[in-house]
């Protein structure tokens, strides 16, 4: 066998190692230098700001009764909150959770913050999808789950003792890309639900279709094909979007329906163009890359990525652009007095002059009797219950900075009722 001479091999190896070390050091040093100039700030909105947002009421009579009931329950709840806050964990606990990707940033912010308050409680949340969350909590492999779409009765029946409560909410924005046709992203186009349904059923195929032109007078809509981008993976965003279309457009309800994953007629209709993107970034990316594309994404994506966002006609006949405020109004006006026995709330096409019509809650899934989950000790159950209580109260202040919508007061009250029923083999966990 022929070998390279030892010195040659050794020197080459040494050079390679030294080069690697230099590259890593340079990368670290360079990154350190550059990073000192750029640091994103997470402003935590004060509770004051939140309560001022929530008290901006639209003139509806139900608001009055909600306010009074809110003050009544809040008085009893103040004493509850203080006694809950006085709790301390008795031992070190580790909680594993998994579920929807939509609330992942917010829930992770909560778990990290909670760990700073109670270092003995380590809660880790992983976003694997709503269905994954439902699967795992039904199989009792995680301690709690999260799902964007509310569980169906069949899914609840498959997991006896499972209950759910909303922990935050969001909206679905309609985005489009007409920049090459002379319509910049800051122009707000108007859509009605029947027009959106027509586009995604492959009936409305061009931007200068009379229906679209009628809604947007004065805007030079081009004679170009509409590429309708939808989600390829199952998602709560799709659920909310199709739920809205089903509720408002009987054609859509008959032909497509609503679910986390549907069959889009635009994909196969002759002459129509449909594309599936994986995840919100897939849809956003497809819209950005395709001239004449339209798509639906989580509100957060629209905000963070400066996409062109459309105004949708709501139940009151107004054209509403999605924002944290308009989604919050939708929640406040639609939810009424929620029933703690069944907190699956639909808020699409909500009443109220400024309510954004495509809004959705997202839910945490947990067993009412936490001892049903193997490996759960009393200490862990107590930690989980207190974490949930903290999340729907103190945790809400972190929502706006991450572009999430804080829970309206009536939903917080209903959640409290449900959390009070959490127990460990009969022993109530709160306070």
């Amino acid at each position, binding site marked *: 066998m022929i*070998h390279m001479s030892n010195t040659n091999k050794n020197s080459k190896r040494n050079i390679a190692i030294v080069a690697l070390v230099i590259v890593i050091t340079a990368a670290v040093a360079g*990154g350190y230098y550059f990073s000192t100039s750029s640091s994103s700030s*997470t402003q935590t909105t004060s509770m004051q700001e939140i309560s001022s947002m929530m008290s901006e009421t639209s003139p509806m009579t139900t608001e009055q009764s909600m306010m009074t009931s809110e003050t009544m329950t809040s008085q009893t709840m103040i004493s509850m909150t203080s006694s809950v806050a006085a709790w301390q964990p008795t031992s070190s606990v580790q909680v*594993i959770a998994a579920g929807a990707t939509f609330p992942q940033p917010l829930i992770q912010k909560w778990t990290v913050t909670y760990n700073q308050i109670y270092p003995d409680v380590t809660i880790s949340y*992983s976003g694997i999808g709503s269905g994954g969350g439902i699967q795992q909590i039904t199989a009792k492999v995680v301690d709690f789950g999260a799902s964007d779409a509310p569980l169906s009765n069949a899914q609840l029946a498959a997991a006896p003792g499972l209950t759910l409560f909303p922990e935050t909410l969001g909206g679905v924005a309609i985005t489009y890309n007409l920049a090459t046709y002379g319509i910049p992203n800051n122009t707000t186009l108007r859509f009605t639900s029947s027009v959106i349904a027509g586009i995604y059923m492959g009936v409305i195929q061009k931007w200068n279709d009379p229906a679209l032109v009628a809604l947007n007078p004065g805007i030079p809509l081009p004679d170009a094909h509409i590429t309708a981008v939808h989600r390829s993976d199952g998602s709560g965003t799709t659920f909310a979007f199709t739920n809205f279309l089903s509720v408002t457009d009987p054609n859509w309800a008959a032909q497509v329906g609503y679910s986390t994953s549907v069959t889009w007629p635009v994909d196969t209709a002759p002459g129509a163009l449909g594309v599936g993107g994986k995840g919100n970034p897939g849809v956003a990316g497809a819209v950005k890359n395709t001239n004449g594309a339209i798509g639906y994404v989580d509100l957060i994506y629209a905000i963070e990525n400066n996409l062109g966002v459309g105004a949708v006609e709501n139940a009151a006949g107004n054209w509403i652009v999605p924002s944290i405020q308009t989604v919050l109004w939708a929640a406040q006006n639609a939810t009424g007095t929620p029933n703690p026995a069944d907190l699956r709330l639909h808020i699409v096409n909500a009443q109220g002059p400024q309510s954004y019509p495509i809004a959705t809650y997202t839910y945490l899934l947990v067993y009412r009797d936490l001892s049903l989950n193997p*490996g759960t000790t009393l200490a862990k159950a107590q930690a989980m219950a207190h974490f949930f209580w903290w999340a729907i109260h103190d945790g809400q202040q972190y929502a706006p900075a991450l572009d999430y919508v804080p829970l309206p007061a009536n939903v917080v009250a209903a959640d409290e009722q449900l959390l009070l029923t959490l127990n460990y083999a009969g022993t109530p966990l709160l306070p």
Partner: protein
Amino acid sequence: MVLATLAFLIALVPLLSILYQTIANGYSALNIDFFTQITPPIGGAGGGIINAIEGSLVMVGIASLIGIPIGLFTGAYLYEYPGRLANNLRLVGEVLTGVPSIVTGIVVYVVIVATLHHFSALSGGIALSFMMIPIVAISTHESLKLVPSSIKEGGLALGVSRPKTLIYILVSTAKSGIVTGIAISVARIMGETAPLLFTALGNQFMMNSIYDPAESMTVLIYDYGTSPYPTAHAFAWGAALILLLLVLGLNMVVRVASRLKPTTPI
């Protein structure tokens, strides 16, 4: 000849593009904190990837501990005892290399995680080893096959026993190919995301033991890279850069440990 050089240059183009994108998008996230802190919540400031590095290294380590010996011995078996059984084993192995990584994850989930009601780094490592074993076995087999029979027969003729011939003569001659097979399989599993989603899940904190869920670099890159926040994107690219360096480092370690470059035999 020109074609061969052209082929090499064509392959370089996407490589350079990927390297450029990774470095350009990721360097802004690198600082000391990046290597010492645990992951921040997606969209949050600061934080680092130390728990992801720990998880990835631990799981790849488990996979290698299981996969390399089994793969090597399987390849040796296929070489030493050719026959119908070996042929069929090899065919099954080749089919297994085509299994989508997500299916491996689902299988390990069904077999281990669902029965134990627990996500863990150990099950993640096992899922990765399922992917590693066929690749190492097949490349070991191919490398051994390429050793000229004169060398094997020379060893046997000198009275060296069969196991010793295998270990000391054949494997050292075929070392280069075997090591290449191990290196590409390690590179492959370090870059895998899907199998870990169902077995190791993810962890915002450091693991206490291998029976805890574990964060990994690839899952982190996917989670942060597909989130809406630009800070998270930079974070993901930074992690991608580190992952690339880690894989290269591992490759280098593997090659240096066997102290060779691809050799030209007699």
